[in-house]
């Protein structure tokens, strides 16, 4: 009887010891688990803090968009001397349909000096404006000549382009009124006249992205919003890489930029009465017949 009692007591003590050992092991496992979790979470938090500091530094870094410099004569020569045969071969090209000129009814003419006016409103930081300027310079050079163009990189997407800030344009057929409304840091740069602002506001609000850059107003006959050039084809390319591609009709850059320029030229031709003939061949005139009515889409 006493022996049996001792055996049960020993069994009970052994079971208690096993439970204590199991509890201790479980506690150790929990501690290890918590240490591991804490280590991983702490590591991530430290990495994110480093990332936040890097982001603040990057946000305040000026980058390559910096100051404008005079445009390269070689680059400009290549942009403005795309052969008519190449323009014809490219035709509509790969111009972005949503950014093509759209006809408007009852638009206010901005005619000055007996000549129609093409109004451009954009911003230096804007990548779509960066793309459109290549097409605009290409198209407008068929009707006149630029001076004072400067090279910049758009702050957004770092696209090699130009600024119209100090540019002047002379033509016997039309006026060009470029307005770089904001600079590389989205700070106000050039102001619009009341009439210009009225047109800009009229065709963008409501339902369109503001500030709606780039905006083209073809003397009360057409508007173009957001531009017909897809800027992604220009990302990572230098000015000379872009300009030297423009005379190659199979180049994606030429198809985009010259295709857009052809549409812009077609809209201008309707303002100038298809003058000069060299800028308004039948193939270019035909493009204007494909323009949709504003708001029809």
């Amino acid at each position: 009887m006493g022996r049996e009692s001792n055996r049960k007591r020993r069994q009970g003590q052994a079971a208690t010891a096993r439970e204590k050992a199991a509890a201790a092991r479980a506690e150790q496992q929990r501690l290890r688990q918590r240490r591991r979790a804490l280590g991983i979470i702490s590591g991530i938090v430290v990495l994110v803090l480093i990332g936040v500091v890097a982001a603040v530094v990057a946000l305040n870094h000026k980058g390559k968009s910096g100051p404008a410099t005079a445009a390269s004569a070689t680059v400009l020569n290549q942009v403005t001397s795309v052969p008519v045969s190449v323009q014809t071969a490219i035709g509509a090209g790969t111009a972005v349909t949503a950014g093509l000129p759209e006809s408007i009814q009852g638009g206010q003419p901005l005619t000055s000096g007996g000549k129609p006016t093409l109004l451009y409103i954009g911003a230096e930081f804007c990548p779509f404006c960066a793309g459109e300027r290549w097409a605009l310079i290409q198209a407008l050079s068929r009707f006149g000549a630029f001076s004072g163009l400067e090279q910049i990189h758009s702050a957004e997407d770092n696209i090699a382009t130009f600024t119209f800030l100090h540019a002047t344009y002379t033509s016997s057929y039309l006026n060009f009124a470029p307005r770089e409304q904001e600079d590389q840091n989205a700070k106000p740069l050039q102001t619009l006249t009341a009439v210009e602002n009225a047109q800009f506001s009229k065709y963008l609000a409501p339902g369109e992205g503001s500030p709606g850059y780039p905006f083209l107003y073809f003397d009360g006959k057409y508007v173009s919003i957001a531009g017909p050039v897809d800027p992604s084809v220009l990302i990572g390319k230098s000015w000379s890489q872009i300009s030297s591609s423009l005379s190659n009709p199979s180049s994606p850059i030429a198809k985009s930029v010259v295709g857009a320029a052809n549409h812009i030229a077609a809209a201008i031709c309707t303002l100038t009465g298809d003058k000069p003939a060299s800028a308004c061949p039948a193939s270019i005139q035909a493009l204007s017949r494909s323009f949709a009515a504003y708001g029809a889409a």
Partner: protein
Amino acid sequence: MARSDDSFRPNVRWAAPVTFPLSLIGLGLSIYLTIQHFSGSTSFAGCPASGKIDCAKVTTSSWSELFGHIPVALAGLLFYVVMVVLVSPWAWRVANIWLDRIRLAAAVTGIGMVAYLVYAEVVKIKSICIYCTGVHIVTFFLFLSILAAYLLRPLDPAGG
């Protein structure tokens, strides 16, 4: 005896009370950004256009659409709809390792997207959007909470 099958391990008790409200905040911000996107509005309450902080510049930039077609705001909304379901109190009650892994994978996807979008804002666009940053912060804390819940799950059904 505790079952060794991971599928039957319960989740930590604080997981739902922490992650569910976070996901609702993220969902609210995403709804607002999606409405702003589709209405074409560029007037963001409390978001000045001061250069470094400019919601309209960010949400109308070329980076505001994935693959040139899918609005980032809509992708964010879909992400938070999924997350609200995955971190709901009902979902946390389902102690299944695969659900935990799917939840963690979704959170990792979200934080990866946040890293990409922050890069786009600070390096490419050079401006930040307050509402987008709000979504990014919520997504980060949601990721941390889900990761912690995953790592700290009780080792046996009796734990907690």
